[in-house]
Structures are given as C-alpha cells and as structure tokens.
C-alpha cells in the first residue's frame, strides 16, 4: 500500500510545474511573511520556535526533493512490485 501511494505521489510530482511551485514556496517560506510568524522568542518542547521551524522545515524540504528526484528516475524496486501485482 505504501508503494502504491508513493507511486501515486510520485506520478503527481512528475510535472515541470511542480518544481516551480516548490521553489517559489520555499522562497516564500524563508522570507518575510512566514518568518515574521515564526520569529517569536517562544519555545516549543524546550526548543526555540524559529530553530524548530528551520530544522524541521529543512528536513521536510529535503524529503520533498528526494521524492521529486525519485519521480524522475523510477527506482527498480517500484517496478518490481508492479509486475508482481496479484491478479
């Protein structure tokens, strides 16, 4: 099930437009509007808000790039499951 969801997501990502969207989104999230929201001296779980925002956001963005890159070059593991799909 995980594979099929992933496959679906991958297929949606395989658009030239999608990367433009992510790029712009990333820019926006690192600039004035969003930054102002998170630019508070408060803490969450003991971690400063902005620090958490950057760290977690960065990790997520790397994950998105990873998905995007895999959508461009489908992995062999993916294809195998396709062939072995139960009748």
């Amino acid at each position: 099930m995980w594979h099929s969801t992933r496959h679906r997501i991958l297929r949606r990502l395989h658009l030239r437009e999608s990367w433009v969207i992510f790029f712009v989104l990333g820019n926006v999230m690192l600039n004035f509007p969003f930054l102002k929201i998170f630019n508070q001296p408060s803490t969450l779980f003991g971690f400063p808000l902005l620090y958490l925002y950057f760290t977690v956001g960065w990790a997520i963005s790397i994950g998105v790039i990873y998905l995007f890159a895999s959508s461009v070059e489908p992995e062999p593991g993916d294809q195998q499951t396709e062939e072995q799909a139960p009748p």
Partner: protein
Amino acid sequence: MTLNILHVTAIAAAYTGLLFLVAWYARRRFEQGRSLVNNPYVYSLSIAVYCTSWTFYGSVGKAATSGIDFLMIYLGPSLVAFSWFFVLRRIIRISKENNVSSIADFISLRYGSSQLLGSLITLIAVLGIMPYIALQIKAVVTSFALVSGVTERTITLPGADSSVILPTGLTLAVMLSIFGVIFGARRLPSTERHEGLIAAVAFESVVKLVSLIGVGVFVTWYLFDGFEDILFRFHTQYPLLFERLFTLNTTQGNDVIPSSTMLFLSMGAIILLPRQFHVLVIENADLRHISKAMWLFPTYLFLINLFIMPIALGGILQSGSTTGADYFVISVPLAAGNESMALLAFLGGLSAAAGMVMVESVAISTMLLNNLFMPVIVRITPKQWFPLLLINLKRVAIFLVVFLGYFYYRAVGDSFMLVNMGLISFLAAMQFLPALLGGLYWSKGNKIGAISGMALGFIIWCYTLLIPSLYAGAPDSPIMRDGLFGQALLKPTALFGLTGMDMWSHALFWSMLFNVGAYLVCSLLISQSDLEKEQVRRFIGKFETERRQVKSAAKRLSKPVTIPQFIGLMGKFIGPEEASQAMTTYLKGRMIDEEVMVPEFELPAMKRFVERTLAASVGAAAAGAIMDSYLSDMGSRMESVYDIFSTVRASLDQSREALYVRLKASEIINRTLDLQTIMDELLQLLLKEFRLDVALIQIRTSSDVPLSVQSYQGCDRRPINPEHWYLESDPYIKMAMIDQTTHFVNDIKNLQAIIDLSKTSSEGFVSFAHIPIYREGEESLGVLSVYSKSIIGLFTEEFVGLLTSLTGQLAQAARLASEMQAKERERREKEQALLANARVKRDMEIAEQIQLSLLPAAPPVLFGIELAGRCYPAAHVGGDYYDFFKRDDHTIDLLIADVSGHSVGAALIMAEVRTLLRAHSSRAVSPSSILGVLNSQLYEDLTRAELFITMFYARYSAATGRLSYANAGHNKPLIHRQGEQSCIELDAEGLILGIKPSMIFEERSINLQQGDTLLFYTDGIPEATNRTGELLGTGQVCQHLTLQSTLPVDTIADSFFELVKEYSQSTTLQDDVSMVVMKIVA
C-alpha cells in the same frame, strides 16, 4: 600529550600525505577503468566543497554573535538544489558539447564567444575570490596557533640557533599553491576531469563532516547533557541573548546583515563561485548523478549544521563571552582538556581550507590562462614549445591567485569576521547572475548588455565593498567619510544617499540595480550579431524563424584548407600525435576518406571540430581567435553562403522555392515530347530563376559518339567551334560523365594552378558547375553546364541537389523521347509494309482485270461446231489466254496460251500478243508462220521482261474438216473420238516463244469427225495437286473428257472446273484453270 608545533605539523603533514594517497589511488582506478569518482555520492561530496573553513569556524562565530541567521547561507543552496534538474542539466549539456572549461567560457560562449566578456569575468573572479582565500588562510593560521599553543604568527624552528622566522601565513600560502598545482595543473586540457582532485575533495568533505559532528557530539553529550540541557542552561543564564540569537533581527544597521541578503547571496553563490561551477559542471561525470545530488547535498548541509548552534551556545556558556567565537570549535575542546578532539577539529578546518583553495585555484587559473593570457599569446604565431609554456603559465596563475588572497589577508584580515569576508566574495560572484540566467532563458540577451551590466556591477562592487573593506582599518579616511571627490552622494557606503543599510545589502542593491538595468537596456536597444543568434539557438533550444531575420544559413570557407594543415594547427597546441589521432577519429565518424580532398560542404563542420578541440586546451574564446587568425593568414574566411532564392522571390521559405522550380520544370518536361524544346525551356528557366549567365546541355547519342551541344542559352551566343571557352572545362565534363557526380567550382580563382581556365575567366565567369544527365543504373547521356559571372559560392549543397534532380528529370524525358521515336519508326515501317502489301494486291487486281478484259466475251458461232472457252483465274494472277478468230464463215482460228509470271507485266505482254494476232489474223498465214512471226516480234520484249509464252495455235476449216495446228511448248490438246478409249494428243514441234530470236515451228494437221470433242487447256488442270501432293495428270484429264464427252460444251467446261476443285479439295485455285472445248456436231 601536549601539542606543540612539531606534533601539529607532523599530523598535518601526515594528513596531507593521506590526501595524496587518496588522489593517487583514485587516478589509478580511473586509468584502470574502474572509476572511484564516477558515482553520485562522490559527486555530492565534491559539491560540499562549498563548506570551507568558513563553515567550520565562521558559522559558529556568526551563530554566537548574531544568531540563527547563519543558517541562511545553507538554506539558499538547499533551495536552489530544487532547480538543478532543469537548469543545471542544461548547463552541463551545453558545456560538454562545447568543451567549456570554466564559467567564463560558458558565459562568453553564449554571447558570441566574446573574448572581452571572458576577460571581464576572469578579472571579477580573481579579485572577487581574494577575500575568500584570505579567510581560509586566516582561519587555518589562527586555528593552527590555537592548537599548537603558539600565539605569534611566526614560527621559530626549534634546534636552530638564530631561529628562522617563518610567517605562518606565507608558508601556508605556498603549501596551498603547491597543492593546487599538483592536483590541478598536471596536464593542459582543462576540460579533462581531474579524478584525483575530486577524490581528494570528496575525502576531505567526509573528514569535515566527521570532524564537525565529532566535536558537536562531544560538546552536546559529553560536556553537557544533550540539546535540551544546553538550551535550558543558556536560557536561564542569558535570557536576553537567547532571545536575540534565536530570532532574526529585523532592524537594519551597520553590522547586521539581513537574512534575506544572505539567503539571496548564497543562492547565487552555490553555482556562480568558480569552484562551484567547476565541480558542478566541469567535473560532472554523468548527468544522472544530478538527481541524487539534488537531495544528497542538502542532506550533507543539514547534517553539518546540526551541531553548530549547540557548539556556539556551549562555547558562550563555557567561556562566558563571545570573543573568539569563530574558533569555539577548537577552543572549547581545548579548554575542556580534550586535545585530540581539538586536533580533530583542526584537521577538519585545515581540510576544508585546503579543499577550497585547491579547487578554486584550479578553476581560476584555467580562467586566467584561457581568457587573460591566451589573447596575448595568440598574437604570436604558435611555436613548438607552446604546450610547455601553457602548462607553466597555468601553474604560475595558481600561485598568483593564492598569493593575492594572502596579501588581502595581510591587509584586511583582522578587521572582519570570517563570514563577512566571505560575503564580499559572494557578492562578486553575484555579478555573473544576470548574464548567466539571461543567457539561458532570454533570447534577446546580448553581448553588449552582458558586458556593460557586468562591468558596471563590478565597478560598484569594487567601490562599495572591496575598497571600503581595504579601508576597514581606517574608517576615518577622507574617501570613506566624505565620498569620492568630496561628494556626499558618492560615499562608498551610502551611495546616492542610501543610508541605514549594512555594507553588504547596500552593495547588493546598487550593483544588482546597475547590472540588471544595463543588461536589460542594452539587450533591448542593440541587436545581436549572427554568431550570437546561433549561440542563442544552441542555448535556448528553440529555432526562431522571424520574418525579418536573415537566415544564418551554413557558411563556407572562401579558400579550402586541407586536412594536413588543420592537423598542423591543432598539433601546435595539443601535440602532433594527439592532433592526428583526433582528426582520424573525426574523419571516421563522418565517413570522409583521408586521401581524397575534403568535399567543400564538409569544411565548415571540420573547422568547428578543430576549434572545439583547441578550446579543450585553451578555452573557447581563444580557440576562436586562433582559428580566425589562422584562416586570415591563409587568405580564407568564413563567408555566408549565397542564398539563391532570397534575391529572386519575396518569400524566404527555401523549400517552397525549390518546390516551385521543380514544378515549373516538370511542367516544361511534360508539356511536350520535343526534346529540343524541353532543353531550351529548361535552360531558360534556370537562367531566369537563378540569375545564371550561361547554361548549356551537351548530349551524346551513344557511347562511341562524342558530346555535342544540343542547347545553349544565355549571353555570348557564339558559334560552337573548337575555340569556344566552354571547352576548357572539358576535364570536368568528362569526369562528371564518368563518375556521375556533379563537379563544381565555387570560385574560379582557387583553380588557376590546377587547370587552365584563361578563356573562361577572361569572359568574366567566376563559378560554374557540370551536372551529369543520367538515369539510375544507366550510362550518362550528357552534361548540363551552368556558369555564373557574378556570384561566388553559388553552388551550395541544396542548389546542387536541385540541379541534380532536374537533370534526372531531363534524362527521363530524353529517354522517353527516344523511346517514342523508336515506336514511331516502327509504326511507320509497319504502315509501309501494309501499303506495299496493298499495292501488290492492287497490282494483281489490275493485272487480273486486264487479263480478263483480253479474253473474248463469247465464242463466235460457226456452223457445225460448238465452242466454249473458260478462264478461272487463280488468286495469284495467272497469264492464261485463249482467243478465237473467225476468218470466214467456215474457218476459225483457235489458240490458247500461258504467259509465265503473275504480274501486270505479263498481262500487258498478253495484250501485245492479242494485238499482234489481230494484226496478222487478216492475212492468210498458217499457224506455224503465225507462231514464228509472233516469236520474232515478241522476242525482245519477252527477253527484257524475262517472261516466256507457251501457245497452241490451231486452224479449223469446217468445209474440209481439217484442223491444222502448231505448238509452242504448250500442253498438248486432247481429242476424244467417239468409240475410242484413249485420247488423241495433238503434238507439234516447237520451243516456247521468247527463247530464240527466230524459230521455225512445225505444222501438222488432222481430220476431225463428227462427235469429236477437243480440249485445249493450260497446265492449271493437269497440275492441280491434291492434299497429298499428287498431280491430276493428263491421264485423268483424258478420262474425264471421255466421261463428259456426250454433254454440251459448256457443261463439259464447267465440269472440268469442278473436277479441279474437287481434286485439289480447296476452293482457291493455285493456278489459272483455262480451257477451250470444241465439239464437232456436223
């Protein structure tokens, strides 16, 4: 263990040795074909050369002083990595195709291989990278001092008396330069991938990461109790600082650089810094690596920055202040007593610095060599020792770059924090951005725009950032305070009155404004050159077909260059052996035979190939300059090919024009079968459409017959004689006929040495072509020759193709015409034969008619006898004749004759006989004398006509009952007497008429009785043949006569006819059947 200089130096040296080992091993693997470097992980690690000692030390320092915004430097590249799949791939593809060796090469290539632009970029790179290298030197020197416990900047070697003082920085600079030379300047071609270098860089990226994470782990979990612990403690101890560090400062000021500036600068730097371009593009081994690198590299950045904040906080907690925060990575472990950790950190920092300097110096020295040194060298004619000179210049350039950094360090080093120094370099690299992005995505971006934008941006960078940095130690100097020439508006840090910004954002704003502005304005106002337009096509990948645009069609070399000459040129730069090797490979790929002269159409492509090969060693701009100067030395240059259609028709669509001409030609050919008309009109079409001056067609009817001019159109109409100028081209014509390919000369000047064309050129012709006329698989029929007096380079591949197809159609038409002629001939011959046949038939019919008209209509009546005469002519006209002459009431002459031959001539002879007989019949002469007279009178005519006559002449007197007769070779008549079984034959001696000029004929006589039946006949009766070939024979005739004798004469005569018919069993007679039947009744 106490660290001292010796320890540290030794360990550093050991580490260096390790690097060499890695590099050497990687090279070996590469040469064996099992490359270590050719995989996406190494690629991503090599990109991590972005993290220099700035990352190592400077980040901590910045984190400790201004807080979390240090992260922007790494978030930028992470964000940009998104775009690599499209942007980077395109850049790499174009670079590989064109043997691009640096970012200067790439950008200048797009703008028409502009050398000026390349030099400008190189200059900006060299000056811009100074602060960066300076910061590396500073970082290593300081960290070295910390780790080895030496506080001065000089080293005294122990064991020497008067201690030798070595400035650490200088030593370091020298060592780094040597590093760079060894790893990056071993061989000349700059586009070769340096496997060893990349392996070393990847290795130390790993060392960096491990080292920083090691220190981070140490600080977080050893000195403290984890992230929460540090945060909690810091929060309690320095709450205000905590707040400040963990929020972005939105106020602007002199020292506070806004996060957006840093973000923007780092986004550009990741690809625009020369070393980054080098590892991303030039050293890329495989386009597929990009997709992995897109997320591997951000992951690396993420990991390496994970512990920066804890280290910074820990450092502050430990030392109580932020001084020396840049070096917390070393000082914190040292203070905690863990020297090995400190050493590890030092190694990491050294690693980072070494990696950066190595790659950067290699990249920039390549640019220096190709863009600043080469243009000077190119003016000198290439000599044998050039390769050696070039490689050493490159090594000198590496030293130069490093030492520039060193001097900047000496001048400025103490005034700035590491990060801020680095940002100065970032901004310099930023000047490339408009030209690069515009070049990739904006087709109108042009050279002037790029140069002016970059120049302006550079000047502003110098003025607002570089110079102030040099004056940073003296902020009160006149320029800094009052501006240039005392103008407040020109104050370097507050240009045009823009105050309140930090130096970097201020410089960013102004430089980008002027850069982008100039680029846009100049690109929009000024149009591009042809070469640029072609580059635009290659870069942007769309083919623009604007109506106004002159088509940059293929070019041609005005004077041909031979293969050995090209090889010689290449050899001067890459060595003679490599040159011929490269050429051979190229020729094989294009399937050109080396021995044969290069076809003219291949020359431009070959020139481009040679240029590309040269570019691999000296850069694209220099290669272009070398090629241009070489060609002009040879007296040749690239010329636009003449567009044959554009001057004739309004429309520029070439294929449509070609179609039009072909259509018209087809019309001409199909309109008529007359080959002459076709040739004339076709030549007229060519003359008119293509502005030729003379066109002529020569044809030969068969291979042993020489060519003859069939059609000649154009000026200089002159009788075709052996003196005619076109005969000078005979060798070409002969060649074209034999090998069935077009032979053309685009510029008659190039030929003077080979063949004598004095008459042709004195007539004013400058180019000509001879196209053979032939059908596939057959021999050539002839040659079409066209001449032009005004256009050089007229015969392009397309034009020749068009002419060839026209001659193909012409050959087809000629073939058709000759086939039609042959058919016509055949038809006429058949007609003739038919006519002849008909004529013959008519002749025969005439003869038949004449013959029939000669015969008597009805037999005369004589008392006592019954007469009947019959002549049944055969299909072929015979020459039978019988006649009766009544002399008086009781005497009658009978005769039967047969003329040989079946013709009008025979019939006419028979008419002559009749006339003669009538003439003589009035005299009372005997049958024999009549025959004799006939013979002598007819002898001449008969001989001349080669005919002869057989005749039987008889005279019957009813009074006496006596029949006298003479025979000239005729069938003996038969008499049937009542009561007798056999017939009586009447025989008399005599030859046939016409043999001898005079003859005596025997005369006999016989008495006839009542009831006698006489039969005179010709050979048609006895010689009737039946199916088996048997003749009827006189016996049968006699028998039949006997049987029929009682019947009336007409019946008898008819019955003989029936007899013959029955016997021969056919309805057509082979010979005339003629007879006279006489019955004596009283």
